[in-house]
């Protein structure tokens, strides 16, 4: 089972490592353990509350559902580029980036500069007045998108973006049914919980008209990498589960929360066709795959050779700023224009300035090429590990969105849950 998903169920499971995981760790400990690359930055001395004090307060004031990583959770007090620092000043390599969110690097100077300068001038006034930052950012953002994708709606999160995209699909087509992939994650609000298709994240609430189709998962799916076979399931759902007409289809190109699962090659092209023929629009959820992360392309959907009708984004868009966006065509936008659509914080000057700086950094520092470069190096090294250790069932992904799946049996693909937890803890140490 994928690395990410199982961490959440960790609370009650003691770690019982298999011999392989232990071997993996010990083979490095017989030689000297690997060293962190050098990094020229000293964190500021930390004088705030300790990890225990913070955990205590969290338990008291933030509710029992707030979970965290590690038996002994880390008190992260500072970040710089790809490194994080804990309360004792210890440096960690951040290979998760606050869940695929910190795109330029923690506290990237250019992004910080833009945000701080704008914070001093004006944080918030809303779009009922004019301000240049929002238009400038929208212009820069749309210049990165193909086809007719040139109208931007700013929101504050991926959930909000996907909510809006779903609304657009329904208003534009006049149809109700939405299709999403099993194992997908699209948000935690009432509409997006319906689209999300992983039971860990789904509360028992009415989901509305949603169909969850077979996941074109090359590793675990029943049809391997046969995109046609999976696409047939979409047609099936439409033919037998709907009126024949749908509102839209939404997918991540590489499922993030679901475990870095790349959609079988050619899948999106086939499905987009099917969905459009049924009157629906195609939504690409780029919340995790966007902004050059996949290396070969700026947007995840480009890896499948398609052009969606609506693109949603968040996470990397602002290097950690609470910001999201929906980009669509003027045609779809004009239907939405029949009513007011307003977001109080959306497009505020500070987040727009931050977002714009992120785009500049990605371009200037050639981050997309860098992702391709380092990503392919990383994936080949991970594949080497896979050659060496049976416990590594699959290595997948593109650029700097990679996944390593641990299994106790390569044939059965039995998820190595305890081993993953053990390795996870050891890596942190």
């Amino acid at each position, binding site marked *: 089972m994928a690395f990410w998903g199982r961490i959440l169920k960790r609370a009650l499971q003691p770690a019982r490592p298999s011999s392989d995981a232990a071997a993996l760790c010990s083979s490095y400990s017989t030689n000297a353990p690997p060293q962190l690359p050098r990094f020229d930055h000293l964190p500021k001395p930390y004088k705030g*509350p300790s990890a225990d004090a*913070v955990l205590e307060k969290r338990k008291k004031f933030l509710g029992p559902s707030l979970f965290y990583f590690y038996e002994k959770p880390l008190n992260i007090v500072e970040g710089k580029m790809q490194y994080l620092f804990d309360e004792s000043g210890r440096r960690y390599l951040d290979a998760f980036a606050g869940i695929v969110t910190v795109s330029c690097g923690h506290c990237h100077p250019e992004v910080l500069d833009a945000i701080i300068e704008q914070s001093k001038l004006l944080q918030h006034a809303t779009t009922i007045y004019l301000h240049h930052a929002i238009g400038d950012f929208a212009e820069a953002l749309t210049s990165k998108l193909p086809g007719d994708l040139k109208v931007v709606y700013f929101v504050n999160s991926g959930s*909000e973006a996907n909510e809006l995209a779903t609304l657009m699909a329904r208003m534009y087509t006049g149809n109700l049914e939405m299709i999403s992939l099993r194992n997908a994650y699209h948000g935690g609000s009432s509409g997006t919980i319906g689209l999300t298709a992983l039971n860990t994240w789904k509360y028992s609430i009415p989901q509305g008209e949603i169909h969850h189709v077979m996941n074109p998962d090359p590793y675990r799916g029943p049809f391997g990498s046969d995109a046609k076979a999976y696409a047939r399931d979409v047609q099936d759902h439409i033919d037998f589960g709907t009126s024949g007409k749908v509102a839209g289809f939404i997918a991540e190109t590489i499922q993030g929360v679901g475990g870095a699962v790349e959609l079988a090659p050619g899948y999106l092209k086939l499905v987009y066709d099917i969905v459009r023929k049924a009157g629906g629009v195609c939504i690409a959820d780029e919340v995790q795959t966007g902004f050059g992360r996949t290396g070969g392309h700026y947007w995840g959907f480009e890896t499948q050779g398609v052009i969606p009708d609506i693109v949603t984004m968040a996470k990397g868009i602002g290097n950690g700023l609470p910001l999201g966006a929906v980009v669509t065509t003027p045609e779809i936008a004009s239907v939405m224009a029949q009513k007011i659509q307003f977001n109080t914080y959306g497009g505020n000057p500070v987040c727009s300035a931050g977002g714009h700086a992120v785009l500049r950094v990605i371009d200037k520092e050639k981050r997309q090429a860098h992702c391709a470069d380092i990503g392919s190096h990383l994936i080949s090294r991970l594949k080497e590990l896979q050659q060496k250790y049976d416990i590594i069932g699959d290595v997948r992904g593109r650029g700097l969105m990679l996944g390593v799946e641990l299994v106790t049996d390569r044939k059965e693909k039995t998820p190595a849950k305890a081993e993953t937890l053990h390795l996870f803890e050891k890596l942190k140490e």
Partner: protein
Amino acid sequence: MQRITAAKRALAAQAHRTFSQSAASLREPELPKMPAFDYTPPPYSGPPAAEILAKRKEFLSPSLFHFYKKPINIVDGKKQYLFDEEGRRYLDAFGGIATVCCGHCHPDVVSAVVKQMNRIQHSTVLYLNHAIADFAEALASKMPGDLKVVFFTNSGTEANELALMMARLYTGCQDIISIRNGYHGNAAGTMGATAQSIWKFNVVQSGVHHTLNPDPYRGVFGSDGEKYAKDVQDLINFGTSGHVAGFISEAIQGVGGIIELAPGYLPAAYSTIKKAGGLCIADEVQSGFARTGSFWGFESHGVVPDIVTMAKGIGNGIPLGAVVTTPEIAEVLTRRSYFNTFGGNPVCTAAGLAVLNVIEKEKLQENAHVVGSYLKERLLSLKDKYELVGDVRGRGLMLGLELVTDRKLKTPAKTEIVHVMEQMKDMGVLVGKGGYYGNVFRITPPLCFTKEDADFLVDAMGYTLSKM
């Protein structure tokens, strides 16, 4: 607060008119002057208004609207003032829609934000960080009863979505009751709870019921709160299984035109809902954080909700929202996993904590009460003077002024209000507009608003009204 009765006020006004009428008829009303303010914005060298408007039309949502025939390019803000591209100063009596509570670019808030940004912007709650815990603690300390568990989101919509879901999960029931003319957000669940057609797309709204609005000005039962509350019981009896998930309402409807719920309404409605097994959700997105003179709007209704949602003022404009509830209700989310990537990030929570500190340090709650009461009195004097002013209402610095062309029929003065708003802007006062008919001035300035600002606002409005 001393209440001058309507009679006393009328007498005072009459006296004023008698004495000053002769003088006034000889004197042209003076153009009101903006209070002095010791700050010059840095020179603006960015694109002008026309260029920005063009870009907005090209690259942004066509449903994006703006105020004013000639929309203003706002480039700088300081306390309760905004500055346009030419450095011209405006009195901000709208607060970015009741959002900027401490004042634009308040130094304490900016400093907390910058300090935190230089350390770490984002890592998520998967790791520990003291900022979120400290802010949650401080926020919980402002709450009555058992309301002590905080969930952070990025907006009011997200907060209300979470609150509605929690109510449904906790009770196992689906039906939510909200008040007509209320506004709660624009995602799937919240668009259902929002009860104004203007803000509702043609979506499926399952499980939501909209009850009579206890509107003292336009409502069918006047100010009889309990009579309106009977409609809640009716809806439960005839529209649901008899058991409901919950009830959500604002203490003073913001988008709906600063409508104070009729006295006695909330306690009666809450009682009805509780009997039906439901939870009471107080939407404090606009009325919270000292704006009404009490810290929370619901306090002035003498109730304690089960869930409180907030946003807007919570961060002085930074994208932040929150839900506060009891440990018992919070427990429902442990059934599965709820996660908000940006929610509770160190920068926004640092800002939130700074906001609470500023509200306390600068006694903004008291100021909202004192200046708000003063402002309301002065607005009421406008009502005495001008037939066009149909109603003046609200509390603290959440005030509304409704314009009507006929006081008996209460015909909304839709064109007149646009004219007054334009004139006031030309004089340097920015107010908001709302209400179902778009004929209500919404006055929700930063809470550092002064008596001089209040005078300027009223004088500018009075000046405009006098010329009509």
